[in-house]
């Protein structure tokens, strides 16, 4: 059969049956769990006297509440300790693999799946976290679910879902120096809107996407949900396979790799696949993006004026006015020069090794601005270890960055890493919602990781292209 998208094919392969509601009962190939959204689901299982149906396809880690400074147990935060203990008990009882911090494999759930190779093309992957779309970078069908759905998946190995439309987003051309995957997705969300993707799965394609490494593709798929799309994916290709070949799953098992590769190839969208919608983004024209407001759709190029609310679609004007008041920005100004107090380099969007490497090249030989507190939070213990081995930790700490342990950290302020008062933060994370980083008066400016490094050094939002890079020995 031809004319089918990856989404059609993966959906069909995992369809168990149609439910009386018209929804599909879809088999889940990988269920990732963490401490915040799973305890209630395990509680519901107990209430109903149910067991975990497929523990071997379930994988746990701890990321949201884990302290990134002192990780000795019990955690100093009682609530965090309770959540951790609850997860430990739940996974032990069910026989679920748990990458806790003693294993050296712990990290943000969307970083560890790909790095271990359990994130694979053609899998269905769910997690009680909206950024599960990240795993789509490998050609998996991956989406976030709520806690009642986690109960469903634990108890049955399945999720009930309606099939959605597919929008192909083609990013043409070549990204210029200083422009990264993060800028591409911020532009996509700006153009299509924060709710533009509701009802759609996004297929990212085009030369600029194909040229990206896996980390860049992950940054883009990660923020699909910020554009309203529950899932986003990139068709698997040689870049994908090269990554997979070096992971735990396949490094010592080339036979498994060869056995699965035909399946991975078979689920790629057909050349003549039919899409419900098609959008083109000019990759050549992009410049580094920053947000000026309190939704990820409120972004501009670094040298572009902040829009007058009246210029925006009517439905967006009120939100824009309130956002500009909160952020204390004026229409007509650019974000270049916006003073910052905090720089956060981390999150499931941008905390992988290449992100840290690129930022380190800028940081090398420079100092964090005296009015800025800056932190680097690697996405996983493996990223942390690799970065330390290649000397990135020294580069960052010598410049005055705080070097932390792996976790979600200041992306959502559930541990001690939080903004205080009305601090402004240059952040490589994914959400600039009011209160997101732990202070309801805090101001978040989203940008790519090198832009975060530049802002940390200059004390203000800065066009990264104005700073020279140093080559790391």
């Amino acid at each position, binding site marked *: 059969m031809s004319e089918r998208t990856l989404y059609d094919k993966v959906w069909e392969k995992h369809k168990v049956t149609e439910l009386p*509601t018209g929804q599909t009962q879809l088999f889940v190939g990988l269920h990732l769990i963490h401490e915040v959204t799973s305890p209630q689901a395990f509680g519901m299982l107990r209430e109903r006297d149910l067991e975990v*149906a*497929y523990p071997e396809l379930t994988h746990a880690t701890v990321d949201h509440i884990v302290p990134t400074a002192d990780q000795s147990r019990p955690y100093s935060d009682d609530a965090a300790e309770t959540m951790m203990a609850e997860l430990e008990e739940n996974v032990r009882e069910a026989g679920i693999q748990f990458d806790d911090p003693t294993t050296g494999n712990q990290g943000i759930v969307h970083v560890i799946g790909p790095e271990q190779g359990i994130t694979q093309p053609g899998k269905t992957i769910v997690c009680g976290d909206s950024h599960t779309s990240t795993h789509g970078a490998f050609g998996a069908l991956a989406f976030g679910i709520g806690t009642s759905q986690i109960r469903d998946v634990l108890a049955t190995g*399945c999720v009930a879902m309606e099939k959605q439309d597919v929008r192909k987003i083609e990013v043409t051309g070549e990204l210029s120096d200083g422009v990264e995957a993060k800028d591409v997705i911020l532009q996509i969300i700006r153009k299509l809107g924060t*709710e533009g993707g509701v009802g759609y799965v996004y297929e990212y394609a085009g030369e600029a996407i194909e040229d990206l490494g896996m980390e860049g593709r992950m940054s883009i798929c990660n923020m699909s949900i910020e554009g309203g799309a529950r899932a986003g994916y990139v068709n698997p290709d040689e870049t994908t396979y090269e990554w997979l070949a070096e992971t735990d799953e396949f490094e010592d098992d080339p036979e498994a790799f060869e056995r699965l590769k035909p399946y991975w190839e078979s689920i790629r969208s057909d050349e003549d696949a039919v899409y419900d919608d098609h959008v083109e983004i000019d990759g050549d024209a992009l410049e580094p993006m920053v947000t000026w407001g309190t939704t990820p759709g409120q972004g501009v190029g670094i040298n572009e004026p902040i829009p007058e609310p009246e210029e925006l679609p009517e439905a967006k004007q009120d*939100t824009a006015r309130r956002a500009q008041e909160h952020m204390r920005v004026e229409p007509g100004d650019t974000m270049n020069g916006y003073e910052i107090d905090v720089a956060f380099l981390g999150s499931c969007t941008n905390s992988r090794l290449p992100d840290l490497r690129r930022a380190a090249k800028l940081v090398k030989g420079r100092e964090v601005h005296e009015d800025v507190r800056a932190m680097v939070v690697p996405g996983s213990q493996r990223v942390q270890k690799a970065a330390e081995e290649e000397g990135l930790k020294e580069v960052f700490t010598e410049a005055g960055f705080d070097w932390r342990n792996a976790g979600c950290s200041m992306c959502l302020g559930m541990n001690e890493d939080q903004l205080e008062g009305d601090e402004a933060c240059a952040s490589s994370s994914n959400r600039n919602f009011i209160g997101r980083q732990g202070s309801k008066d805090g101001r978040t400016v989203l940008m790519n990781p090198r832009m975060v490094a530049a802002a940390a050094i200059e004390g203000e939002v800065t066009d990264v292209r104005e700073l020279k890079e140093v080559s790391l020995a």
Partner: protein
Amino acid sequence: MSSGTEESEVEIPEVKEATGTGIPIRGNDIDTDQIIPARFMKVVTFDGLGQFAFFDLRFDDDDEEKDHPMNEDRFKEASIMVVNANFGCGSSREHAPQALMRWGIDALIGESFAEIFAGNCLALGIPTVTADTETIEDLQDWVDENPDADIEVDVEAEQVHYGDRTVDVEVDDAQRRALVDGVWDTTALMKSNADATRAVAESLPYVDLD
């Protein structure tokens, strides 16, 4: 694996309609961090989340009440929330609809809802019905004028009745069927297909079952 008939039966009520007084929550793009700030998610149950719904918009730094519909006496008994566009965008936290439900909300009427949020509402038996901007704004204004009057959300007929008015609303097909037929809690339903599930699992090249 067992075929799913042994567990204690869970009663799933049919939700054909929801009736109660309304509360307007105005603004587009109201995200889940506003509905329930992350610091209140450091819990292992959903109990007691109702008091933290919209906390940072309802209370200042000294825990004094701010101007917010949920702080107004006239809306204290409300069970139908009337919202604008892209409500519930952001995270997948079920804590958001759980907090609203535990505050007393039985149904939401809005211009549009974020997908994961709407799915989480459905998993709790809470309808999220939609209508155009004008219909919603009229209803919000009417609720302001008539805080003690009932709104009836007829899920089955896809209509909302208030005052002497009846307006058409949209309910997603699967949502409507799930609510009206009382199959919105899908655990037992899907577990009854355990054999077919295992067959799909075994057909997949990457699945290695214990």
